[in-house]
């Protein structure tokens, strides 16, 4: 999912970079000086662990393999703010040391894998986890699995949407047409997500059993509890905000698309007039719809996984207990 330089339309890359810098800046501001000093080495070592875990290939079937992203895992272990910083660092190292993903595309890669993926992972986990209390260990596993799958799928949907929007904004000079990028990215990552979910569940269960102290305790609520503090320290409220942020992040791309959409769309249609073969190829999606398809699919996948998790929890626990 690492986007190289020169693939994305400059405007799309610019919007992505601005969003990425804004979010990373606020994450930097949120991680207070004190937490930083104490947790920096631990976050660094965990990032190294995640980087190495990304080298772990799991079998997908038919001889192909996928590898972990680990964003949900990191977010569950050290909280969303530090996870954003940690994944950012992993991406910078991959871009500068290994040529995986480019500099101009760092904003978009960061947006997909260092912001959207951990925020969705942590958000889904925090939303599903409180409901799963009555079910015991299986409930926790379901929450983790839902979080891991949703994080991979949403990140892939965001990547596909960026590719599609690049393509239609630039009249086909950049990006990948939605008709290819959306089904390819989503289909592949829906399967990869299952591997990610299974392995993340295994890892979380293993780490819980072997070394519970590996989980950073985040969000220790202060003794003075005004309504505002209680609201902002409530995990459910914060998780909802995290997920809202993710969908808010996709809005600028939508405006970008709709502002130059009409013109770009017609142009693309003309450009596409290369031969009959192409028309057949593109039939499942009309060109400009790539962005909406991807966004819609991302939303749908997210809802589906939340509903599925709830359903399974209900079946297991004869009605979730809230406390």
């Amino acid at each position: 999912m690492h986007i190289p330089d020169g693939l994305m339309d400059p405007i799309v890359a610019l919007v992505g970079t601005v969003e990425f810098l804004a979010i990373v800046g606020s994450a930097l501001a949120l991680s207070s000086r004190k937490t930083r000093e104490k947790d920096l080495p631990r976050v660094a070592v965990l990032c190294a662990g995640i980087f190495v875990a990304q080298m772990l290939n799991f079998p997908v079937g038919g001889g192909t393999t996928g590898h972990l992203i680990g964003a949900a895992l990191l977010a569950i272990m050290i909280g969303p703010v530090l996870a954003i910083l940690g994944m950012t660092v992993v991406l910078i190292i991959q871009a500068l040391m290994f040529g995986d993903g480019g500099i101009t595309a760092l904003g978009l890669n960061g947006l997909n894998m260092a912001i959207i993926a951990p925020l969705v992972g942590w958000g889904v986990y925090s939303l599903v986890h409180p409901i799963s209390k009555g079910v015991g260990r299986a409930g926790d596993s379901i929450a983790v699995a839902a979080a891991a799958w949703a994080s991979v799928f949403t990140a892939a949907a965001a990547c596909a949407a960026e590719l599609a929007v690049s393509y239609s904004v630039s009249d086909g000079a950049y990006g990948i047409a939605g008709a290819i990028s959306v089904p390819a990215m989503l289909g592949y990552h829906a399967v990869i997500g299952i591997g990610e979910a299974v392995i993340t569940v295994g890892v979380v269960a293993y780490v819980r059993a072997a070394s519970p102290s590996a989980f950073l305790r985040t969000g220790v609520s202060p003794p003075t509890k005004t309504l505002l503090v209680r609201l902002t320290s409530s995990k459910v409220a914060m998780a909802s905000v995290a997920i809202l942020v993710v969908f808010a992040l996709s809005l600028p791309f939508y405006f970008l698309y709709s502002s130059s959409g009409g013109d770009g769309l017609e142009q693309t249609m003309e450009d596409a007039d290369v031969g009959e073969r192409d028309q057949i190829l593109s039939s499942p999606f009309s060109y400009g719809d790539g962005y909406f398809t991807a966004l819609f699919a991302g939303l749908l996948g997210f809802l589906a996984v939340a509903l599925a998790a709830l359903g399974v929890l209900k079946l297991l626990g004869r009605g979730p207990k809230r406390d």
Partner: protein
Amino acid sequence: MIVGHVRGHGHTLPNPDEHSKSHWFGRLDSRAKIVGVFSFVIVSALLTSAELIAASLVLAVAMATTSGIPLRPLSKAYAAALPFIVLASLSVFLFAGTERGLEMLGRTSACVVALLVLAFGTGTFDLFAGMRRLRVPSVISTLLMLTYRYILVVSEEFSRMRTARRARGFRGGRSLLDRYALKILSFTAGTVLVRSTDRAELVYEGLKCRGFSGDITVWRTSVLGRNDLAFLAVLIMSSCALALAQTEVMRW
């Protein structure tokens, strides 16, 4: 010290520290290299006409060949980055014609080659120190240094575990339905993380003893010499020329 046999995304870890001082590119000030290469890459990513893309590709390849960096690892790393680029170009071939596809291939290749020259021709910690001196926030640069240092340690441990796994007959499994394989894999990842956190405690105490207060002081100081400025000037000027030519193309 860095192990060459660790695979990330299916390719080997580069070892920039091995040759980094043996060629002129490695001796340049890291700030000059970062600013120069970044501006070149940013301009190259914006090019749309075939002639300019060819020019930037020639420039990138010229930089790679004259820098004195061993070409074998460089081309290997380029080959590792290729599949995604080819997939993208292929879709452009199909939808917007051969010319556009070739342009995409050339544009991404020029950027990737320039970035790889920077990555392979610079000592890792020189690179991070350079970023630090270019005012990248200290949390990010400190995390970068610590993380990179521990990637080396953890990946060595990981490859030991992999050897042990293979010695016991583990072959990686066949599909997602292979419960046994996935269990082994998640235990491997879990062990990596648990050992990492155990080590993190020791690291923190060790850093504390050396006066760590959330920040790493950069000891490498260097001044921009004549060579650095010349290198910077050449790259910035060619980037500007490309950018100017590109605006001319857009006006037409």
